[in-house]
């Protein structure tokens, strides 16, 4: 027996078994105790509750939702809300971060100072404090009767009201796709090898492509327009309430603004780091080839900087997605808040926590997969890789 313990291999195997085994035992014990405690409260375990109707409501949903809908539908709504808020926050934060980051790398010292002040202030205040601040600010706006109005937009304590076109849902979605195509088409036309024109002399084709897509979008909107209604539906006061238009609730706007500002300050630093990583020689070489400053920027500086910052940016985006869980602080029904509500109402604690973990794991993994693909596509390849 003692000689067996002296054997390195046996000892290693025992050590590993002990480690993994004790961890597994810990988890299992917790699981068993939780099941017994929950059973004492009359809560049966299992995923049957997913098909029961919830009996409560969500305050924000992109899909139709009523209190009669089952739990699985609400979890789906939560995930979509989280992804929607995350995507909006991510886009806004990227815009803010790019502007501030460019200001920080610009040759103008005043612009640098402005950018640095922004980053120093907003990076050093916790996100949740900023969420609370914007939420308080929006809910302290005047009531609908005394709303701030500008170009058909209404700012009230009940949220921001924006005019929307009077167009059917399908037509709206098609028009959105066409607009996205109008943005993507020029990029594709500029890079594809299927055209006979040399790269760099395709601006006419690119313009035409974008124009065709945009005209398509307008046509779709015209066809899908609702009969006997004005083109735009403006929000307006009716009695004590507001009618028409699209209401963006204060919870959503507070979160989106806070994520844009806070995330923007982090992305600004990433952008700055990316531009700093571009070798000076690269730019000097491009200038000495006679490229204009704009083309040096778009053809040399930007692509090289993008390649340097993308991996870090991917991490930041994953972080931003997780930051949407702040929604619970102001009552935005994101995925986490729906799980918390489900636990409160149904008592199915273990199952709901499991769904929460699986959901975030799936979101993180798919984001990571997307960025890995992009990263691979723009990474140095083959004989470009020289020391």
């Amino acid at each position: 027996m003692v000689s067996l313990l002296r054997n390195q291999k046996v000892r290693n195997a025992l050590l590993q078994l002990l480690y993994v085994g004790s961890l597994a035992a810990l988890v299992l014990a917790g699981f068993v105790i939780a099941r017994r405690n929950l059973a004492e409260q009359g809560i049966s375990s299992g995923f049957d509750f997913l098909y029961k109707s919830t009996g409560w409501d969500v305050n924000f949903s992109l899909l139709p939702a009523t209190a009669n809908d089952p739990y699985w539908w609400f979890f789906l709504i939560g995930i979509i809300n989280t992804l929607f808020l995350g995507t909006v926050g991510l886009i806004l934060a990227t815009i803010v971060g790019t502007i501030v980051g460019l200001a920080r790398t610009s040759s103008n010292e005043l612009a640098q100072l402005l950018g640095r002040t922004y980053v120093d202030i907003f990076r050093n205040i916790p996100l949740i404090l900023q969420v609370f601040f914007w939420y308080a600010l929006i809910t302290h706006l005047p009531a609908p009767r005394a709303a701030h109005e500008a170009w058909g937009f209404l700012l009230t304590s009940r949220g921001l009201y924006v005019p929307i076109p009077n167009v059917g849902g399908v037509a709206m979605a098609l028009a959105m796709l066409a607009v996205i195509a109008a943005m993507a088409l020029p990029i594709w036309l500029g890079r594809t090898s299927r055209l006979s024109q040399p790269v760099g002399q395709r601006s006419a084709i690119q313009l035409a492509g974008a124009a065709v897509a945009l005209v398509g979008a307008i046509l779709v909107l015209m066809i899908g327009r609702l009969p006997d209604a004005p083109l735009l539906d403006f929000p307006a006061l009716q009695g004590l309430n507001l009618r028409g238009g699209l209401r963006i609730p204060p919870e959503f706007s507070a979160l989106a603004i806070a994520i844009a500002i806070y995330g923007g300050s982090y992305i600004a630093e990433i952008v700055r780091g990316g531009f700093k990583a571009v070798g000076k020689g690269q730019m000097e070489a491009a200038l000495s080839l006679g490229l204009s400053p704009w083309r040096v920027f778009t053809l040399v500086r930007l692509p090289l900087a993008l390649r340097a910052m993308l991996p870090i940016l991917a991490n930041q985006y994953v972080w931003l997605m997780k930051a949407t869980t702040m929604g619970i602080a102001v009552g935005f029904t994101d995925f986490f808040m729906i799980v918390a509500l489900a636990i409160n109402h149904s008592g199915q604690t273990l199952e709901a926590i499991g769904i929460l973990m699986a959901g975030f794991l799936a979101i993180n993994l798919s984001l990571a997969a997307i960025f890995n693909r992009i990263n691979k596509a723009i990474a140095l390849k083959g004989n470009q890789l020289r020391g």
Partner: protein
Amino acid sequence: MEPIVLAPPAPGKVEDLKRRFFATPLQALVSLICLAIMVFLAWKLLDWAIFSAVFTVTGGPEACQAAAGACWSVIAARWRIILFGLYPFEEQWRSALACVTVVVMTVLSCIPAFWTGRRIALVWGAGAALFYGLMKGGVLGLPYVGEEAWGGLALTLFIFVTTCLIGFPLAICLALLRRSELPWISRTTGLIIDGVRSLPLISILFTFAIVLPFALPQWLVGDKLYRVIVGSALFFSAYQAEIVRGGMQGVPAGQEEAAMALGMSYWQRIGRIVLPQAMRNALPATINQFVISFKETSLVVIVGFFEILASGNAAYGTGEWRFAYVEVYAFIAFIYFIFVFSLSRYGAFLERRMAVGER
């Protein structure tokens, strides 16, 4: 014969300004726009915060609300709630002293003379014990104050300090386990670390505060405060473990091989050769992690603690000060800013200092 070196003619002040800000028409335009933005914002801010602001409590909320600028009276009237929460009024000096302890402790651990494992552990251990004794009382004639009455800045600092105190050793353990040569140990640990990192902190705090009592035997449940601290320490250690591991990867393999050749045991190799060098490599990232984790202590407001953010909400949320939310949030933001900004400046200073040695 020394060669005579002529300095280039020094440019005048005006030429210098011209070259820096008005070199080209575009530069001039950008400069002017930036200057205009800065002057406008600075003027608005100063006017709001100082010139048109009300500082005294005498007029009461009504006089304050009528003023065009900030209403700092709300801070003058409610600062005790914001800083100390529900801590008993006569004992609040203890809470203040406890906060000072944390600040002193942090400053001490920023001095290189304290950067040995034993000294840093001593400073933090003694500091945490002093903090705990002051806050909780029951010794040396100090009246007892239970954790449920703690609040405000002191609670924020307590959660931060204990998170680091538990999280840091745990992080080193996790990092060592993850780089273990035994595949099952390193893989399982990697799974734990990556799993924790992929979850949002709020969900972990929620699980530890509200769900865990179901899964623990009665005698292990303990106070909610300590469960949340354990959860936040776990989260901290998962991130910090990766930082420590990164630092260890930066230590040349020859170092450990040399130690092995000298016949050092595993713990000697880790404690005397690998960890000291790894911690040095990992120091800037570690400070950054401290900064992040300080900001994230504010999330405990969601699981119902009366830390500085919640006490701020309470300070303006009731009755007559309802309108003064901007001032309260500005005050809390300022407190966070002082802590976080000085820590991150210190991190940047360290990074520069270490870069000198590597040139």
